[in-house]
């Protein structure tokens, strides 16, 4: 077990959208530095909501959130932690709002108080890291779906976060782009939580896989067995391990 406090600690969280039924209910969750966690759960089970709670974009109706060992509740508290946690939105169109790729990637660093030239250097470096050299002056709304996803990832990585929250990063991508993003994520030297419906992807990029049931986060044994089968796609017979 890790003796350092969890960097994300949700205690008895309850959340419902106005007028809706409870989405998250008595939810407890701990996430430690170095953890690589997968989250697989049905549509509408509250995965995106969970990420938004961690970022302080929606407020729990009850319960406590601790980030990096400190309780956070006010908008101000969250402002400080947002720079340390990067959220990749489910829909890249929500994330890219500047006309050019360069401006979008530099937006975060500029908000963090970097100078124009520093921000541009960071943006160039991040784009190059993701294999997006030469994309600087491309128009964001004219990018393909896969390119948008990569640029979104660049806008998040440019903030140099300590933790990444990736909301369905492979959604709607072709095989090649999937492989590329999978490799990039795998090689990241960061702690992260990935939401995905693709068990094989989670198996190769994360160390533990959770699910959400009835508004609670569970470590699902069945899921791990299920996962294990898929881990040997070439094995002739799927098998359960004791």
């Amino acid at each position: 077990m890790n003796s350092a406090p969890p960097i994300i600690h949700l205690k008895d969280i309850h959340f419902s959208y106005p007028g809706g039924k409870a989405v998250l209910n008595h939810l407890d969750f701990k996430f430690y530095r170095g953890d690589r966690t997968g989250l697989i759960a049905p549509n509408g089970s509250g995965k995106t909501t969970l990420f938004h709670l961690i970022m302080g974009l929606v407020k729990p109706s009850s319960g406590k959130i601790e980030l990096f060992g400190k309780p956070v509740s006010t908008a101000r508290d969250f402002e400080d932690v947002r720079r340390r946690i990067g959220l990749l939105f489910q829909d890249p169109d929500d994330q890219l709002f500047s006309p050019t790729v360069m401006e979008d990637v530099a937006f975060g660093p500029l908000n963090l108080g970097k100078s124009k030239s520093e921000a541009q250097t960071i943006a160039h470096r991040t784009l190059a890291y993701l294999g997006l050299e030469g994309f600087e002056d491309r128009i964001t709304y004219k990018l393909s779906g896969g390119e948008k996803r990569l640029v979104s990832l660049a806008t998040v990585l440019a903030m140099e976060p300590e933790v990444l929250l990736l909301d369905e990063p492979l959604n709607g991508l072709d095989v090649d782009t999937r492989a590329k993003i999978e490799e990039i994520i795998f090689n990241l030297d960061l702690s992260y939580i990935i939401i995905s419906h693709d068990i094989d992807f989670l198996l190769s990029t994360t160390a533990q896989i959770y699910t959400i049931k009835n508004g609670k986060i569970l470590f699902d044994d069945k899921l791990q067995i299920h996962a294990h089968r898929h881990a040997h796609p070439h094995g002739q017979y799927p098998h359960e391990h004791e």
Partner: protein
Amino acid sequence: MLQEPFAVGNSILHRIDPRMRIAAATVYSVIVALSRHFPTLATAVGASLALIMLAKLRPRDVVIRLIIVNSFTLLLWLVLPLTFQGSVAISIGPLSVYHSGLIMSAQITLKSNAILMALMALIATMTLSTLGSALNRLHLPDKIVHLLLMTYRYIFVIEQEFQRLMRAAQIRGFRPGTNLHTYKTYAYIVGMLFVRSALRADRVYKAMLCRGFKRKFYCLHQFRTGKEEWLFGTAMGVAVMVLIYLEWLKAGV
């Protein structure tokens, strides 16, 4: 997702300091809006056309935008000439078309086209964040700048959502007509449009917050006032002077 087709370009106007462009566009628009004589308004339309050419905007995009605005002025042409009292220009059966209404409609049409074209050439040629920080540097309060930028953003977002909804209706064989079904469909589309735009705006804003947005826009544009700026400023100054001369001195109101 934001469409700013005019913002990318490399014309002389694109390179002029945004603050200078904003100041020029403001003064120019106010003068055109206040003018009422046709020689002035015609000159203004000409000047605006010249600006569009200078900005090297794609004629197709410009025309599309003009058509949108002029569909509204068309409405005025249908209403004003019939309702304004005064000397009758033409009588068609029981309908009287009034002179002053016609003149008013013509004035509004010329004015709106001149102003719109000038704004396309001068303002739409800068990106959102550039516009924001330029306004900031012109010492407009942050809150107003913020409001302007967000309004500007929503227009594009709403337009896009509208097109998506219309497509969704069209691919299922929706043909507008004058019947209840059409009105109901349009009502749904408009209602849906508001809901979707609000949700989208909310998500975009959240994404901005996640990246440390503190209600302040930075931009990578370097502001400088050099020879080109003064040249442009002088040219615009002369244009405005000509308009003022035509409107208030020559006509002698």
